[in-house]
């Protein structure tokens, strides 16, 4: 049997070193890397292809629950074992979904059992945990076999186009396969629906202007955005938003 490849993800150095000690004691496995937050964990997992990832839940940048959601989309998704200090509400959610978690401080025997039965999370197990992390901080985008993580706060607007949604940041555009309605539900507090096919980030809207369109010569409201030259037409139905803004 080939040696198990393990990735450690925890923001606290002592916690990582403790796991390293325990794993060395267990032996017959290989620690392929260590990540300091959820985002790093995904990028390292993509690169190193570990069999198992030991994933802390409370981490900066991106927490473990969200990281697990993104990890699931990797071509070779690692098995996830969550590690956590006491957090009442979280533990209920784990038990309910029969996801493996280790309570810190972690015992060696407990870790050993977890490693033996570790397997990839099922989608329904993850959806059960979603309530612990109701809003993602990043969108993951697969591009030419690579995984890219775009921070939600960098997104200027989202526009639905046929099968895809265009994600616009100051630098460039990306395509994702998610529904605009679903994105609106998840990020309703960050984006404003200006048009049937477009959500714009409140933080990037500079103002509104009435402009004439070429075809009919009729004037229409458009939203002006920070960092990008293009404007977004505000549909008649959404014009009440301008008055509120």
């Amino acid at each position, binding site marked *: 049997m080939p040696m198990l490849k393990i990735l450690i993800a925890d*923001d*606290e*150095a*002592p*916690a990582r070193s403790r796991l390293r000690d325990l794993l060395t004691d267990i032996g017959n496995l290989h620690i392929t890397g260590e990540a300091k937050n959820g985002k790093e964990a995904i990028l390292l997992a993509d690169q190193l292809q570990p069999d198992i990832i030991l994933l802390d839940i*409370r981490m900066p940048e991106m927490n473990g629950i969200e990281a697990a959601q993104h990890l699931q989309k990797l071509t070779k998704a690692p098995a996830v074992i969550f590690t956590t200090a*006491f957090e009442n509400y979280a533990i209920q959610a784990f038990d309910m979904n029969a996801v493996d978690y280790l309570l*810190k401080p972690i015992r060696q025997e407990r870790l050993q059992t977890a490693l033996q039965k570790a397997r990839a999370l099922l989608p329904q197990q993850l959806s059960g945990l979603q309530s612990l992390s109701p809003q993602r901080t990043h969108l993951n985008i697969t591009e030419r076999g690579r995984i890219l993580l775009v921070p939600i706060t960098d997104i200027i607007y989202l526009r639905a186009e046929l099968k895809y949604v265009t994600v616009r940041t100051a630098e460039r555009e990306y395509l994702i396969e998610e529904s605009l309605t679903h994105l609106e539900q998840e990020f309703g507090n960050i984006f404003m629906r200006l048009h049937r096919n477009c959500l714009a980030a409140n933080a990037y809207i500079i103002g509104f202007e009435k402009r004439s369109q070429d075809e009919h010569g009729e004037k229409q409201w458009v939203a002006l955005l920070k960092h990008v030259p293009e404007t977004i037409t505000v549909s008649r139905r959404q014009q009440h938003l301008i008055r509120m803004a």
Partner: protein
Amino acid sequence: MFCNAAIYNLFSKIWIFDDLPTLSRVLFCSFAICALTLYYFNLRQRASSPAVAEARLQALQARIRPHFLFNSINAVLSLIRSQPKQAEAALEDMADLFRVLMADNRELVPLAQEIALCRQYLALEKLRLNERLNIQWQIDNMPPDAMIPPLILQPLLENAVYHGIEPLADGGTINIQIYSKLNEIHLVLTNPYRTQNNHQHGNKMALNNIKERLTLHFDLEASLKSKQENGVYEVHITLPQQKQKL
């Protein structure tokens, strides 16, 4: 007399009083109002009596986050093999911290004692967070022997670490400023604060707890104000300066 007439007017509209003679009616009403007023004063007095205040102070004992306890134990475990000396020091700090947390904390303590406790607490957090946690003390002008309620500052630091520093990958600085002015002590604590992904809930609990303990000790002479501005969260406590009784 005018008052009685008014009461008579009011109650005469209710049918039951029409059956009674005028004098009994007035007497009945006066009696009822007297009884209610007395009951109110009695309640008020009981609520503010020292015994009740004592009991409430005891119930309001500051609580440490279990999250902190277990993470600290985990950090100490990681040190035992590689840096046993540091592990010993950490366990000693933990013992001191929990001794205070479990003690009967109704009496005021010198400011210097609370500061010492905070330093021990921060040493433990530093163990976990290392260079992510920076502390800036500005306490040159503080009166070290001024008396304050115990565990006023430590829970605020715990909040600052949990809500302010831990969510930042590169960490940040907590600033603690203590000074006295016009016979009042000011404790001002600031920490970086990101609005995204916060859990406001736990924070409010600790603040309300401190607020209530300040009120029980100093009534309206003490205050706690908090605000967030430009990514910085600030808590400002003002309390009267009291010297240790000899």
